């Protein structure tokens, strides 16, 4: 039964809706009014000019306050600060006069097909694309608003616009007169904007881009006033917890909800269908039973009181041990070729020396500090979603597909998100909110607990990497093969059906591809009945560990210095083709530069105390370059301590150095945390981990300081949210080798040194 067959259209007044629950019970729910109007976006809904509104992102208040719209999903990468900085720079206003306002998802109705259009451009968060997407676009938005203000002053003074300039939110006349932006704003708002792009400032004239700038809403964060998705409220909204099948593709055989319904505050219990076994996962991840209640605690108690008999899915006997055996067995087969340069087999046949090693990487969960959730209000015509998201476009499509509501009538607010790391690129939790809200006939907030989160994720693929290098008699690398036996990323991923099976697991154009004459990259799919997802710097993190540790192994086998070998392979600074995300080019000189810089800063090559070692690694990630140099000490009992941790990065022109330092510091700690102790394992078809004690993120006691060095780069900026992680694990393991002469090839480190990694 669909909600819209019976529900009266929601009005702005509250009304009582009486409806039958799916289980046949009578449910009395208070369906509240829509919250008054749309969240105040910066763009007038009607398209008519609003007072002081200069384009989609700039509003100037009569008191001189400059209000700038932040369009992105803030997940901790700093876009609520960095994107408005781009606008403010070209608008030519002091940053201290700026107030940042979060924009909602900006889809509005349009007469042209497909019936809607975007007001603000790209708003998602994934692949570190916010800054590169905005670099021209948002600087233009600021420059065009400035153009309007200058032309408004030109009209007032009857002076050619070319003779006017701006400084600190004022337009200057050559004779010394000035008009403030606040005085000009209304007149400027009535002018026709320029038809084409306007010139941007010279780099030397900038006063905001490149300056250390603190988080725009820091005061709200430290006073507890900042709203995150889970803090969203809609009057009358109920809270839902879902008991999900502990077996992927499992289903509810039978359930008894009599005790659950007697829990005070419980309003309804509903069955939730899951994905079809074997079919793409287009909506929610798991079948289950939802308990809807007045508040979290009642829903939680209700869920605890459910008795459910699960029908196990097809993966119910699987285990991590069996998975690893399958992966190792797969290496004996022939897989899909992702790249072949020259003739690796011939290079191998003619080699003076062949080096080979196998590396193992675990499944990983995202474990955002703020668990998944979605607050949704539905009528037959409209929807309002408040949630922490990375893909509001995907959420909008999901709701529209499931309800028939037109895209332009789905309002999506974008509160702060308590972390993303790729988890929220999926909108399965939004689908759950639709399924529950349709049955509950009330606005519903679906809340996940930590256990729900760790056990129902789109996991980072598991993989075994076999690397082979061939050397000639002089120790030069003549061939390189990288064979990956992994759980394919595209497995049941909606929208990836037409992609090759190696996508997300093989970095066909990654270093040293293009730097070795005979190069071979191959993929061997391994079965596993679990959903897969993108996990912060997905492919770079997956491939950097085996490649960068193997480079060290090759260097040692050939009696070369690991840094010197990397620099020799990178060769002359030049651009190579890179066809995957972060391309189209990879610059060998930029990777060499960050490696040299990290090495110099840590004092690579200096004499070290006994049991100390320094390891290096670098990686090209989503258009940016980063390298780590890590010094460790390993006691004779196997206790590891990170003595120093240096990161060098080239992410192009620097927008916010303070924000960049935070991203690389945080990325480095995330990398350490993951390399030391994090893995998801399967036993009898179920995820073994359930909460932070068995998925132990790094704590303060083991978090080193991170020395971040940013290259003063002339290249156009990449993003920065993901570049700080991939080179951490290999640098750490290379350092452990340097300290102990023990070559470890399995993530996480765990107790491989004979002592549990802290």
């Amino acid at each position, binding site marked *: 039964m669909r909600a819209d067959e019976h529900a009266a259209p929601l009005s702005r007044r509250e009304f009582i809706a009486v409806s039958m629950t799916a289980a046949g019970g009578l449910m009395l729910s208070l369906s509240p009014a829509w919250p008054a109007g749309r969240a105040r976006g910066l763009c007038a809904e009607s398209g008519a000019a609003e007072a002081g509104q200069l384009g989609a992102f700039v509003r100037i208040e009569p008191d001189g306050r400059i209000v700038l719209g932040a369009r992105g999903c803030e997940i901790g*990468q700093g876009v609520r600060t960095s994107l408005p900085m781009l606008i403010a720079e070209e608008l030519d206003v002091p940053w201290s006069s700026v107030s940042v306002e979060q924009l909602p998802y900006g889809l509005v109705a349009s007469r042209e097909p497909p019936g809607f259009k975007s007001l603000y451009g790209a708003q998602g968060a994934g692949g570190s694309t916010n800054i590169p997407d905005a670099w021209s676009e948002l600087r233009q938005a600021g420059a065009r608003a400035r153009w309007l203000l200058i032309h408004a002053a030109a009209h007032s003074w009857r002076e050619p616009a070319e003779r006017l300039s701006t400084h600190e939110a004022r337009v200057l006349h050559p004779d010394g007169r000035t008009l403030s932006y606040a005085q000009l704003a209304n007149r400027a708002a009535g002018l026709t904007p320029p038809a084409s792009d306007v010139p941007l400032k010279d780099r030397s004239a900038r006063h905001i881009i490149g300056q250390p700038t*603190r988080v725009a809403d820091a005061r709200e*964060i430290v*006073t507890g006033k900042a709203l995150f998705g889970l803090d969203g409220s809609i009057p009358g909204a109920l809270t839902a917890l879902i008991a999900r099948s502990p077996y992927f593709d499992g289903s509810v055989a039978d359930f008894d909800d009599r005790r659950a319904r007697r829990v005070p505050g419980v309003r309804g219990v509903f069955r939730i269908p899951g994905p079809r076994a074997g079919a793409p996962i287009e909506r929610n991840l798991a079948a289950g039973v939802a308990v809807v209640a007045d508040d979290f605690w009642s829903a939680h*108690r209700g869920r605890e009181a459910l008795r459910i008999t699960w029908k196990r899915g097809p993966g119910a006997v699987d285990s991590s041990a069996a998975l690893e055996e399958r992966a190792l067995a797969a290496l004996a087969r022939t897989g899909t070729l992702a790249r072949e340069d020259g003739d690796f087999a011939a290079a191998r046949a003619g080699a003076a020396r062949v080096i080979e090693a196998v590396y193992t990487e675990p499944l990983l969960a995202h474990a955002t500090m703020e668990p998944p959730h979605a607050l949704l209000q539905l009528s037959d015509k409209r929807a309002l979603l408040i949630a922490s998201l990375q893909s509001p476009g995907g959420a909008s499509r999901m709701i529209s597909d499931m309800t028939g509501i037109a895209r332009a009538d789905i309002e999506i607010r974008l509160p702060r998100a308590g972390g993303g790391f790729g988890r929220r690129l999926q909108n399965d939790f939004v689908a759950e909110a639709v399924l529950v809200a349709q049955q509950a006939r009330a606005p519903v907030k679906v809340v996940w607990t930590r256990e729900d989160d760790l056990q129902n994720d789109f996991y980072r693929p598991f993989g075994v990497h076999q690397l082979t290098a061939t050397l000639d008699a002089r120790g030069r690398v003549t061939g390189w093969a990288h064979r990956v036996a992994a759980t394919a990323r595209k497995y049941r991923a909606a929208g990836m059906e037409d992609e090759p099976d190696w996508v997300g697991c093989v970095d066909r154009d990654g270093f040293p591809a293009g730097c070795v004459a005979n190069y071979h990259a191959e993929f061997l799919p391994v079965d596993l009945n679990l959903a897969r997802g993108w996990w912060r710097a997905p492919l770079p993190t997956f491939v950097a560990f085996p490649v960068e540790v193997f480079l060290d192994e090759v260097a040692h086998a050939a009696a070369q210095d690991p840094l010197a070998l990397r620099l020799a392979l990178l060769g002359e600074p030049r651009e190579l083709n890179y066809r995957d995300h972060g391309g189209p080019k990879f610059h060998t000189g930029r990777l060499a530069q960050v490696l040299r810089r990290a090495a110099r800063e840590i004092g690579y090559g200096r004499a070290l105390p006994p049991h100390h070692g320094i390891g290096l690694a670098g990686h090209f990630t989503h258009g940016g370059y980063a390298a780590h140099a890590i010094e460790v000490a390993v006691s004779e009992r196997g206790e590891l301590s990170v003595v120093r941790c240096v990161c060098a990065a080239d992410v192009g022109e620097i927008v916010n150095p303070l924000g960049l330092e935070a991203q690389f510091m945080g990325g480095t700690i995330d990398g350490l945390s993951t390399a030391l102790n994090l893995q998801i394992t399967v036993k009898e078809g179920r995820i073994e981990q359930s*909460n932070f004690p068995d998925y132990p993120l790094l704590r*303060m006691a083991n978090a080193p300081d991170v020395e971040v060095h940013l290259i003063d780069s002339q290249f156009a900026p990449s993003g920065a949210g993901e570049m700080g992680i991939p080179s951490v694990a290999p640098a750490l393991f290379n350092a452990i080798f340097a300290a102990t002469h023990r070559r470890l090839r399995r993530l996480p480190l765990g107790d491989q040194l004979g002592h549990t990694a802290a």
Partner: protein
Amino acid sequence: MAIELTLNLRTVRFTGDPAMPLLWYLRDHARLTGTKFGCGIGYCGACTVHVDGVAIRACVTPMASVAGRVVTTIEGLAREGSLHPVQQAWIEADVAQCGYCQAGQIMAAVDLLRRQPQPSDADIATLTNLCRCGTYPRIRRAIHRAAELLGGKHT
């Protein structure tokens, strides 16, 4: 039976389930959403608040146990519009990334500085609050800065 407590200087009454964790009373009933849900088992510290001035994990603290006691949340830390020195230091050190765990981190830091006005890095390392974004180095800086602002004395 009603439970009465002092919440951010106001007296409040609660008549629901005495087993309800303080966290969910704060978030769902008192509408103070600054205190966050992270694990539900008292492990991650996102829900850290003060009871009688001492940091506790609200997600495992039943309402019955706070009857008659003084609860301070992140919303009650700044008094009369002026930030607590720890909050001030947090802004100066630009600690927050996603920001979700920071309320709990700040409440834990205030408690540490009460016990140890000039904390060493080793003292700071006793804090067990989790941060998934990895802001620990800046948290350390902020706590040292807060100790300076407090002048070695806790206010």
